């Protein structure tokens, strides 16, 4: 199925209500995933047009190893972001990667705008665009239930992926997410708003084809080796055990866990929202992305009494480290079940949970300092008060008034209007959950996805011994290139210790992609370069990056922030990015 000659891309034009299969690009050079998405945007994107232009492509891409090996289970979503009008990526697990693989496509590219709210249904032998105007305004959960009935075929249960948006995507929030199979997301930079702009409520992809196995015995042996490593050793145990929330206590001890809009980086209340507490008191079960035997998706049980006589609702809410940071410590919550309440509300409206939490943390401080009043927020916002936040999330998702409409475009947009830019915790976008130090702050503000996933800067901060700018920038650039290999395959980044460069080459060769294996180093460098070119072509200026004052006031385990060092790293990293993009 994966020839070395071209990619197989399903292109759907919603305006024309037509689709075609493209034979596109060169897999040896573009690899797949991040590389394929960038190559498609390079060819079909409109870098000078705004993100909401209907002909901007919304791209979903898988990699050459998707389905062939464990944890090769993610999809790259690429688009021009309505948040900052730059080329952007978001990655998600769930079932979509395997559904696309078994539908026979390396990428799905959607352009145009449907005349009415629609769902796109595709498989190896099917493609339909259905009118679903009656789903307008429906929340993510009720949309999912209705779509399962609407799109079901005889053997599709479990072999199909449904991605959908909630009201926030329809309203065009700059950080509306796309929900993938209930518990995973294309989050952060507004992929959900792009779907909303295209009048596309959902995509249902059915993995209903089959392919010949790669020849030779090498593949079976390598598969077994990888499987053993990820299930029978301790390499992945922490992701299955407590999951990423295991990080809460260590980061809190390192004074690196943001609390109350980053007014503090450590708090004794961490024990009440730690991974251990979630596991002991609320964990219902673990689940997994299709093709990944680790099972890192942790589902908590939320019980809510809705009437007298012991009448309860029960909800299954997925939690992770960063959602707990965003809707927990950042908002000063000190009860794990209250964090689940907010995560549930955020899921329903279809907002990116990290961006929404950080935006509400800014709003809380703005309200506290008198920059805004309850006339704007409609409800009282106080750190630790779950009731106010639960209502505010709904207002934010529905863009209930001018204030929430503005805040839905980002904390800095709101700060421009109302003030409070100094304490807006934005590093290119609303911050991720690590306050580890100067290299991380400079990296997140400047790096491609403005996320902790572009580099291991948060880890570098914890290990570095001195303030060495050159070493830090070298690390950022090289570490990103390594991740380009994984993000082009498209592997879960949890498996980065398993899928080393050599292991990837071996894995590619075993599925008869030897040219790709031989060219992996050069191709991943090309992918890194092309992504930066696209980001800069769509308006990014790494030298114009700002880091709000709050980040300079933070105290980490290393002590006060060394502003000179932080800005040196930022400037030199920006130089390195410009150099990469111009070669």
């Amino acid at each position, binding site marked *: 199925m994966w020839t070395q000659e071209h990619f197989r891309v399903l292109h759907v034009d919603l305006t024309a209500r037509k689709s075609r299969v493209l034979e596109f690009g060169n897999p040896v050079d573009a690899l797949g995933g991040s590389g394929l998405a960038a190559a498609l945007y390079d060819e079909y994107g409109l870098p000078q047009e705004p993100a909401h232009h209907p002909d901007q492509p919304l791209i979903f891409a898988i990699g050459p190893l998707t*389905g062939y090996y464990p944890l090769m289970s993610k999809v790259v979503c690429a688009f021009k972001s309505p948040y900052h009008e730059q080329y952007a990526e978001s990655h998600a697990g769930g079932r979509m990667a395997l559904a696309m693989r078994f539908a026979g496509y390396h990428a799905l590219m959607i352009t145009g705008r449907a005349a009415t709210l629609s769902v796109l249904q595709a498989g190896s032998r099917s493609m339909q665009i259905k009118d679903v105007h009656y789903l307008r305004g429906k929340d993510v959960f009720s949309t*999912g239930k209705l779509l399962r009935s609407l799109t079901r075929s005889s053997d599709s249960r479990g072999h199909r992926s449904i991605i959908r948006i909630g009201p926030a995507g329809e309203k065009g929030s700059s950080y509306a997410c796309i929900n993938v199979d209930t518990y995973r997301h294309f989050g952060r930079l507004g992929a959900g708003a792009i779907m909303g702009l295209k009048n596309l409520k959902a995509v249902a992809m059915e993995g209903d084809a089959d*392919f010949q196995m790669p020849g030779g015995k090498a593949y079976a042996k390598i598969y077994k080796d990888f499987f053993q490593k990820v299930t029978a050793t301790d390499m992945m145990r922490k992701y299955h055990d407590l999951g990423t929330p295991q990080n809460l206590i260590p980061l809190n001890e390192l004074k690196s866990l943001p609390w109350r809009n980053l007014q503090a980086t450590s708090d004794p209340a961490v024990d009440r929202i730690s991974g251990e507490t979630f596991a002991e008191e609320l964990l219902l079960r673990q689940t*997994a992305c299709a093709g990944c035997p680790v*099972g890192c*998706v942790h589902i908590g049980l939320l019980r809510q009494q809705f009437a007298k006589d012991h009448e309860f609702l029960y909800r299954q809410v997925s939690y992770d480290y960063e959602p707990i940071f965003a809707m927990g410590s950042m908002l000063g919550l000190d009860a794990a079940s209250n964090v689940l309440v907010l995560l549930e509300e955020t899921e329903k409206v279809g907002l990116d949970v990290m961006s929404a939490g950080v935006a509400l943390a800014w709003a809380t401080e703005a309200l506290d300092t008198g920059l805004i009043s309850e006339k704007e927020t409609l409800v009282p916002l106080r750190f630790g008060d779950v009731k106010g936040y639960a209502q505010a999330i709904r207002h934010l998702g529905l863009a209930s008034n001018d204030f929430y409409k503005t805040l839905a475009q980002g904390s800095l947009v709101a700060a421009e209007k109302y003030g409070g830019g100094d304490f807006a915790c934005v590093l290119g976008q609303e911050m991720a959950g690590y306050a580890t130090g100067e290299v991380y702050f400079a990296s997140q503000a400047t790096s491609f996805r403005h996320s902790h996933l572009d580099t291991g800067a948060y880890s570098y901060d914890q290990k570095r011994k001195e303030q060495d700018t050159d070493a830090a920038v070298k690390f950022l650039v090289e570490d990103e290139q390594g991740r380009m290999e994984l993000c082009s395959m498209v592997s879960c980044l949890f498996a980065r210790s398993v899928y080393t460069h050599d292991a990837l080459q071996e894995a590619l060769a075993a599925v008869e992609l030897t040219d790709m294996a031989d060219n992996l180093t050069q191709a991943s460098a090309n992918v890194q370069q092309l992504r930066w070119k696209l980001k800069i072509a769509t308006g990014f200026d790494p030298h114009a990056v700002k880091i709000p004052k709050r980040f300079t006031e933070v105290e980490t385990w290393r002590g006060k922030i060394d502003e000179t060092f932080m800005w040196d790293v930022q400037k030199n990293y920006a130089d390195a990015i410009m150099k990469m993009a111009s070669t």
Partner: protein
Amino acid sequence: MKVLLANRMERCIGCHSCSLACARQVHKKFSWSMAGIRIHSSGGMTTGFEAKLCVACNPAPCALACPTDALTQREGGGVKVKHSLCIRCGACAEACPVDAIYLGEGLPYLCIHCGRCVPFCPQGCLELVDEPDKEAALAPECAPFGHMEEQ
């Protein structure tokens, strides 16, 4: 005679590793469907998963329905499959009481109780047991993450 049981599906995390292993190893296919065991969502990811596989009927309605002996009764339950004799009529799949037979290009794919999927379940959901011990498997013990190590 061994029989594959999926009596611990409440532990299933929906990774599909068993199904992919069967397709890969038994049927030499890269497929989500051409496998003797298929994992279905039992109503969305919020409610867990179910396994579609042969439950080792004896006599087996699929074998009785097969007009060409492509499917024949296996001693102890289940059937033997010979694709070269199949005329792709689909009668077997229609006769199966538990929807365990997948028709791929008209050919039947179903569990032959070989157990090659078992080491690929990280949760210990599956077990290959001697047929007389079938009932003993109804009392599952806990299997930690890392099940494969214990095979």
